[in-house]
């Protein structure tokens, strides 16, 4: 596996310029939007702020320095694992993110289970019974799933399963109890399940037309074995790709779901930080999400080798 080791090392090394680029973009963006970051520290209630005190606050946070100095200083600290402290809470950014990272990962993984657990079987069944009522029904459901706004789906599930029928708690983290995870995971996972189902169906249809499947059937192999060993295995590459792309999205794009279900994840931290112009937190949260995204992509690429022996890492 020397090839794979080298490949992994190279990919991880490639992360460095990517993250550097991201921090630069975020830094520039946050600084070109109109408004002095100083005033994110103050609000309307404390209208009359003495200029001397304002200056002291600015110095305290290093906002009196030129932008490039601020950026270089940020990078120098970041290399040592110090992403600074929040303007608002004065909490360490790394601590603020790590506190919420667990909840985000939990939700992302659960949603992935929903996406694959619902989407993959639906797609396969639809492909094998092409043109049947089952096919039509699952594709209509998939269409609805793709086009339904997450916001609406979430509230619908909440009112249906938590308010009308008291089967599940409407929102919250519940200290990690599984019941609390179901609704947000469904909300986040079902639209992805729809995408997975559609991709799985077309990939299966594509593969099932191939000569080796016809040959396998002609050999008299049982239909189940044909589907799994020859069909699914060969259809997996596009499916894994789409699951990988979507999984990255699950980790980063959970903001709406986290807000509706009051889920204490990184998404909400990021939204609050943007609203408060809390630069250090925005930077930190974005970096964490970017790294996660890159890692998921790496996992997907490595998975290819296990699915398809023809894939080699050099």
């Amino acid at each position, binding site marked *: 596996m020397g090839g794979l080791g080298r490949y992994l090392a190279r990919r991880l090394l490639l992360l460095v310029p990517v993250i550097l680029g991201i921090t630069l973009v975020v830094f520039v963006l946050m600084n070109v*939007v*109109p*408004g*002095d970051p100083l*005033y*994110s*520290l*103050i*609000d*309307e*209630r*404390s*209208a*009359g*702020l*003495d200029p*001397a*005190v304002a200056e*002291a*606050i600015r110095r*305290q*946070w290093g906002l009196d320095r030129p932008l490039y100095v601020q950026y270089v200083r940020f990078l120098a600290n970041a290399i040592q694992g110090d992403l600074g*402290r*929040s303007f*608002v*809470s*004065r*909490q360490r950014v790394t601590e*603020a993110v790590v*506190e*919420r990272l667990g909840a985000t990962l939990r939700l992302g993984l659960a949603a992935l289970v929903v996406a694959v657990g619902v989407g993959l079987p639906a797609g396969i069944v639809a492909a094998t019974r092409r043109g049947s009522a089952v096919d039509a029904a699952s594709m209509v459901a998939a269409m609805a799933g793709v086009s339904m706004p997450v916001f609406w789906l979430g*509230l619908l599930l*909440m*009112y249906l399963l*938590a*308010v*009308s029928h*008291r089967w599940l*708690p*409407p*929102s*919250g*983290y519940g200290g990690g109890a599984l019941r609390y995870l179901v609704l947000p995971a469904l909300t986040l996972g079902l639209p992805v399940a729809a995408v997975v189902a559609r991709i799985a169906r077309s990939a299966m249809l594509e593969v099932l037309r191939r000569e080796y499947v016809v040959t396998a059937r002609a050999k008299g192999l049982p239909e189940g074995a044909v589907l799994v060993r020859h069909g699914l295995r060969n259809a997996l590459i596009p499916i894994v790709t789409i699951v990988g792309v979507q999984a990255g999205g699950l980790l980063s794009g959970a903001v709406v779901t*986290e*807000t*509706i*279900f*009051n*889920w*204490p*994840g990184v998404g*909400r*931290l990021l939204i*609050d930080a943007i*609203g*408060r*112009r809390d630069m250090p937190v925005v930077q930190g949260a974005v970096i964490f999400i970017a790294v996660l995204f890159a890692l998921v992509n790496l996992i997907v690429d490595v998975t290819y080798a296990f699915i398809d022996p023809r894939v080699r890492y050099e």
Partner: protein
Amino acid sequence: MTLRDALRRLSPALVRAGLLVTVVCAGAWGGVGTLRGAAGAAAGAPRYGGTFTKSLNYGDPGSLDPIAKPEVAAMMVTMNLFDRLVAVDPVAKKVVPSLAERWEIRDGGLTYVFHLRKNARFHNGREITARDVKYSLERLSDPKNASPSANLLVGVEGLEAFQEGKAPEIAGVQAPDPYTLVVRLERPKPTLLMDLSAPAAGVVPREEVERLGLDFGQRPVGSGPFRLASWRKDDEIVLEAVRDYWAGRPYVDRVVFRIMREEATRDAEFQAGNLDAMTLGEAQYRRYSNDPAWKPYLVEVPELFTRAIFFNLRRPPLDQVKVRQALNYAVDKRAVVEKVLSNKAYPALGPLPSSSSAFDPNLEAYPYDPEKARQLLREAGFPQGFELEVLATAAGARTVEAVAGFLADAGVRVRIVRLESTTLFERVRSGDFQAAFYSTGGEFDPVTFLYARLHTANFGRAGNVTYYDNPEVDRLLAEGMSVTDEARRIAIARQVEGIVTREAPWLFLNYNKAVVLHQPWVHGLQPVPTDIDFQDLTKVWVEPRR
């Protein structure tokens, strides 16, 4: 068979179908009905114990350090964790004792002597002394701590020298013995007591602050009626009652603040019975206030906030008083309040909200008079009207659209620029706007409120964002800021109110109404005008549920 016969024959089926639908719907919402059934109209005597769960609508507070940025989300929690020297009873509109049992004002209002109670303790068990109060006030004022409220004590002797690093302490704040705190002023400051009651003036224990450093805001230790039990970010903050609190044990054992930004989620949790109280938005208010079953459980108050379109008087044609008056005449404020704001507001007369002690209900204001508006515009030289650019947040834009409809009738073409609130305030503060729509206020003292927003000393960033300039108002407000006599101050505020209303630097639109909805088993929530989320949680008690 005629159509009528067909209908007649079908009607029993239609009625049955209708009934079925109704029954099914009622069943679906039956949960709500059973909750109402528990409505105990007879409240009885307050009882101890239980948990009170309330929504925290504005996101995670971030920091619970009293000197941190004064956001509502943080203050509604910190005011229960920290005691101040004195407190404000916003409902009775007066300053009341807290850590200071009593005080004397000497030297014509220049010296305040506070006598501290002897049975007050920090949550770590240590007794509070005057030295702690001095330390807390110096910590707040020290620029090194970068508090946005660092200037709260302006006017206290020696504050500037301390802030400039020329003195190791604030000379005007002294603790001659453990139970006496003396505050000396450079000039009379009628708002001193009010300022000392601000959440930012919360008293903190030095040893904990030094032990925790910048993390004090994450693990606050105060002396208030509640202590922090746990805080899961973006999820919930749990407070636990201090049983040996100097003013007596709070009724409830625990308070849970659930951090919920989404209105629909709060609704669902409330209907599921998981929330004991929540502050309502406009759509929710329309629904619950029209429902006789819930109406008794609404607590409403005109808050100390005035919502207006603020004009930049340096941008023509808004420099002309007739134009500004015309805009005020052109809008049917009552209709906007009823139709757009679902009656969750009160039409405004002038700058001071109706809950202000200086509010004048007989103020000569602007009735809806489109003809008068057009006439004033003609006199000002705008028979064809003009174009007006109004900054608003996405939420505020809906109201401005309604206002724009009325202004269009008078010939004024409104262009709405939607901005995120931080950006909106920054543009307003830097003078880069023609007109802007938002709420201003939360100020208890009417003179302070008017001084900050209308005195020429506060042009621009300091608060007078409209660049309102009137020597008479300047003179009155300067006097008001140095007079201690409350009746005289109110008379001054009313006089200013009259002048400012006439000169219309703002399009006075409405005063905000804040509404809390609570479950039938909850008692003791108050209509707090400074912000209805600033509840005195020691007064709240809950009945056992079923």
